[in-house]
């Protein structure tokens, strides 16, 4: 190796190392480049923020629409769906379907590969992939979900959370606007430097509040929705017991009694 090549190789090394270090240094001093999403932190946003509409999470079953046709069961490549029911008279603990009674509808999440093949052939479009992605369980038995009772996340939840998100966003925007206004008012007050402007400044945040805007950030909790949206499935709730057997007089066409909504969307932390 000639002396020139020797020195040149040292120069190349130094140069390229400096180039790399310049790049990493640029990132080091630019916190705006940080891409981390702090899932599960205290100021957590609803799950809607993390997953798109087509997300294939844990299934949701709209029991009222289900006709107990076993097509999803057959479509499943890993046999994780098992269902049972009857078209005859209602029996104790049965869930009301469309012209049938479902006694069980379980989903083995230990096997499920979230391929969406069960949802596609459904003639009534009553089984969907939901938004829930926390499928962790302590035992294998816990991984088996009863879609009739254990639905972790239903369509109604989804609507509620979408609304909650809107409320939060609106509240954030409102808070920001108020902050700006307060700052402006403060600046104005300072500029005038007279006590006459003083009442305007504290009044500023409250006065221009337009009607219909959500409550301030302290009260972002969305109000319970009075009634389920039509077509929305039964409200969920892991702790909710199966509905009592319909009274004998009720015909097969009678919808299940509306349940009161849980007052709040579930906190999306685990």
């Amino acid at each position, binding site marked *: 190796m000639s002396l020139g090549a020797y020195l040149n*190789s040292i120069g*190349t*090394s130094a*140069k*390229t*190392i400096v*180039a*790399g270090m*310049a*790049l*990493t240094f640029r990132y080091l001093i630019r916190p705006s480049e940080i*891409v981390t999403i702090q899932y599960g932190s205290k100021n957590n946003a609803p799950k809607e923020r993390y*997953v*798109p*509409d*087509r*997300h*294939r999470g844990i299934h949701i079953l709209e029991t009222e629409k289900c006709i107990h046709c076993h097509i999803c069961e057959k*479509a499943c*490549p890993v046999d994780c769906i098992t269902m049972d029911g009857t078209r005859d008279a209602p029996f104790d603990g049965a869930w009301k379907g469309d012209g049938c009674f479902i006694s069980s509808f379980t989903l083995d999440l230990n096997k499920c*590969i*979230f*391929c*969406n*093949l069960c949802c*596609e052939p459904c003639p009534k479009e009553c089984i969907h*992939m939901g938004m829930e992605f926390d499928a962790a369980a302590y035992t294998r038995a816990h991984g088996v979900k009863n879609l009739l009772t254990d639905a972790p996340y239903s369509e109604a939840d989804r609507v509620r959370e979408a609304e909650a998100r809107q409320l939060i966003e609106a509240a954030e925007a409102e808070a920001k606007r108020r902050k700006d206004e307060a700052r402006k008012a403060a600046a104005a007050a300072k500029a005038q430097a007279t006590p006459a402007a003083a009442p305007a400044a504290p009044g500023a945040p409250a006065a221009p509040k337009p009607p219909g805007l959500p409550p301030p950030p302290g009260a972002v909790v969305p109000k319970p929705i009075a009634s389920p949206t039509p077509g929305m499935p039964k409200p969920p709730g892991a702790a909710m017991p199966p509905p009592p057997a319909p009274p004998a007089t009720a015909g097969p066409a009678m919808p299940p009694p509306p349940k009161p909504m849980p007052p709040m969307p579930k906190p999306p932390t685990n």
Partner: protein
Amino acid sequence: MNAPHIPKAFAASDVRSEEMLLNMGPQHPSTHGVFRVVIRTDGEIVIDSESHVGYLHRCFEKHCESVSFLQSVLYTDRLDYLTSMGNNLAFSLGVERLFTDLVIPERAEHIRVICAELNRIASHLLAIGTYGMDIGAITPFLYCFRDREKILSIFESICGQRLNYNYVRPGGVAYDIDDSMIAAIKDFCKYFRPKAQEYDDLLSNNDIFVRRTANVGVLSKELALSYGVTGPCLRGSGVKRDLRRDLPYSIYSRFDFEIPVGTGERGTLGDCYDRYMVRVREMIESLRIVEQAVSQIPDGPFKTDQIKGKLRPPKGESFIRVENSRGELGFYIISDGKDVAYRVKCRAPSFHNISLLTDISRGAMIADMVAIIGSLDIVMGEVDR
């Protein structure tokens, strides 16, 4: 014949006292999966090595004989789980080839190309990132994952999953893409081009990286040909072979792109650096294809209406290969007219690429061994099937 096999070169009695048998894998940070190499070393020098695969064998081919064609598609996701779109595409093309007159809508073809190329970028990003990690640079790995994340987010909005897409199906694709997704893809193209320079600064031009990879693991053209190596590994040896141009499937013949080949720019032709650089350059070419496809995507149906009800290809055999990010992925599909395949054989590129490890790792150091395995860029899901 079923007795445990110990090749003669690796019998303990044959190992000289200054040599050492070293078991690299199945659990090792740099074997890219459960891959095991038994290395006979003299100090740090690799004298001989023997590869053991099969730790991830899960009978993909047997599965396909018991589930329908549509259900088989999602098992292909799990072959090369970093290029699932390409696997779906290959299998779908193979099934479609069994039909005599199946017309795939234009929109579906464009979506397929976009997805396959985006997935190639994602896969190469991961290959480059993990390669940097093998060499010891951790930061490029995270930059690559940052950019790959954007592609995965696009895929998630298109088909709902980040890794196992089950999106390209025989007859078209599973769901249509809408304007917001097209906008996201366009945004990504704009975003990604300048980022490629960062990888050059951090890795490609870095002298330590060059010295670690140039002249290491030289894969000569002859050896590559005789082992049936394909993809970036073959192109790194200077062979300009790419099925997208040579045997165009789908609508690849309409797009304008280059095929980068290794030139031995920093060392010998066919060394690790060449294979690495082929991947870096291919990402840009894939980006060009994506840009062209996105700009000319037509309206129309996203899947053919010729397939109704159950997917029952006619009796026959078909063999299809597509240029996946690791090489030519082939499917030999034999149908006997039922909705379940009679036999499916998967010709996996990584299976070929890793089979020559013994030949190119002789005389390397252990640190080079890591660099060689990384530059071959294997995915064990595909090797073991």
